[in-house]
């Protein structure tokens, strides 16, 4: 399975394509289960790049764990969570704050 990821142009923040837009977390990214779906995601990425919404657009491997989308490679896991050495930074920070609340 593949998902579409990029960095937002204005602030460089990592984003994933989900439900018709670019989400700041990977959890509910649109999954491509076959080549046709991958092509569709790739076309969306190319269009968003051309429209100067995002940069560094990539299709990456993903899996579903406990109903939540997760990247497969460590590099992409770290992009999706934040630095492993600073749990207060990156996407994981917001999640922690939510739990605390």
């Amino acid at each position, binding site marked *: 399975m593949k998902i579409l990821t990029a960095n937002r142009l204005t*602030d*460089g923040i*990592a984003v994933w394509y989900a439900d018709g837009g670019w989400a700041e977390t990977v959890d509910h990214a649109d999954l491509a289960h076959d080549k046709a779906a991958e092509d569709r995601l790739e076309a969306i990425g190319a269009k968003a790049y051309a429209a100067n919404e995002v*940069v560094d657009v990539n299709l990456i491997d993903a899996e579903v764990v406990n109903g939540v989308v997760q990247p497969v490679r*460590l590099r992409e896991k*770290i992009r999706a969570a934040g*630095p492993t*050495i600073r749990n207060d930074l990156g996407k994981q920070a917001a999640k922690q704050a939510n739990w605390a609340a």
Partner: protein
Amino acid sequence: MYRYDEFDHDFVQARVAEFSDQVQRRLAGEITEDQFRPLRLMNGVYLQLHAYMLRIAVPYGTLNGKQLRMLGHIARKYDKGYGHFTTRQNIQFNWPALSDIPAILADLASVEMHAIQTSGNCIRNVTADHFAGAAADEVADPRPYAEILRQWSSVHPEFSFLPRKFKIAVTGAERDRAAIQTHDIGLHLKKNAAGELGFAVYIGGGQGRTPMVARKIRDFLPEADLLSYCTAILRVYNLYGRRDNKYKARIKILVHETGVEEITRQVEAEWQELKDAELKLPEADIRAIEAYFAPPALTGRAGGDQAVKLARLDSKGFSEWLDQNVVTHRHPDYAAVTISLKGIGEVPGDASDSQMEAVADIAEKYGFDELRVSHEQNLILPHVARADLKAVYDALVGIGLATANSNLISDIIACPGLDYCALATARSIPIAQEISRRFASLERQREIGELKLKISGCINACGHHHVGHIGILGVEKKGSELYQVTLGGSADENTSVGEIIGRGFSSGEITDAIELIVETYLGLRLDPQEKFIDAYRRVGPAPFKEALYAGEAKAA
């Protein structure tokens, strides 16, 4: 320290305006990413895993309190409250929004700083001995020459599109603290028999996937010929350096493939055409730049030794810090202080906004407003009266920066690795933290003695692993992080590239392996005075291989 003249101010302001306009046009969609990428890189803006990264130049690692305070301000206002000091004596911010970068650059320009030429295939920030101007063992301060090189190389039209990036380092002492033999050009400032200043010139050093120790091509170059000779080197490189393969494009490959005799001949031939023309440095100009680096007026502060002696009795922590982080100054009443950014279990090279501001205060109060960034990712107070050392120590304790581990095993160089870097293949920082925690006991670290441990998270070697006494290289193998160990590297006047000791270790095994290497060294050293690197050079890799892998051979 160097102060901008009118030309410098205009140049930096013009660049801020130009790049701000480029950012606005990019955000408005008027220029594409392909068009913008080389422009942002020329201004130090990278795209990393989580966000953009801005690398700010600290020329030859020298800055003052006002500048460091501004870096703290930028960390707080535009970033996430911290900055990362790098092995090129620069600082990086990991989270700036592209839309904020024009404002950051304007703030930097207000304190005579910028991010120009911190990326791209140009001449990068010239680095120098972090004790320059203070060291008891230097023949002269190397920074005036680094400044002359900075002025010459800034937007140099001929050298802005080299085959690859180009790094120059200068030292003014026999004991090389600037790692000059790992640079594209290494300059060793010295005096000839007649007492005249000049340079031994090394070229073709570098790390990355093909580590090479620089070769000396001239034993003495008169100071007046600095720019003409460097121009000759750059011209030969620019003409013959490979542009067909990024991995073979550095001058080290050209030196290796051409041969040092032939390339020396080419450089000297080019130099003959240049040496008596407009690049010859007028004596008055050299001395004028030198005047900017005139040392502060160090008044006699007798009684420092007595104060230090008494304070030692009072505080074990101070005594240990004094032994480890304080070095001899050319003035007997003063000392140079290393502020370790390697607290046990901390991220090597990181400092928070409030730490930066507090260090700026300390430098202004006790250090003649002078600071340095070392290539080993620490901060330096180059001139502190011995009588003030206890006050400085107490202030550093107050902000958590008094770790007494300079040159010990926990004083680790580590690149950002896979926690931040888009090029990395494995994490470096968590490995550094775990090793630091394993060797947390200062007593144990001091028993081990000087040991330079350096970690890179990919083969580009930003963490200098090739020249660590112990080097660790993180790679990705079958989807997991694997750490390869090299031993016997060194980045001083006896530079050597470490040798791979054997198969790599998982992230769970690597700290045990490092501990075993250290225990093996402790078991075989002749006496406590024999440093790790000297013991390794005496016995070679065999005892370490035996300790690490013998069990496997028997099991097989």
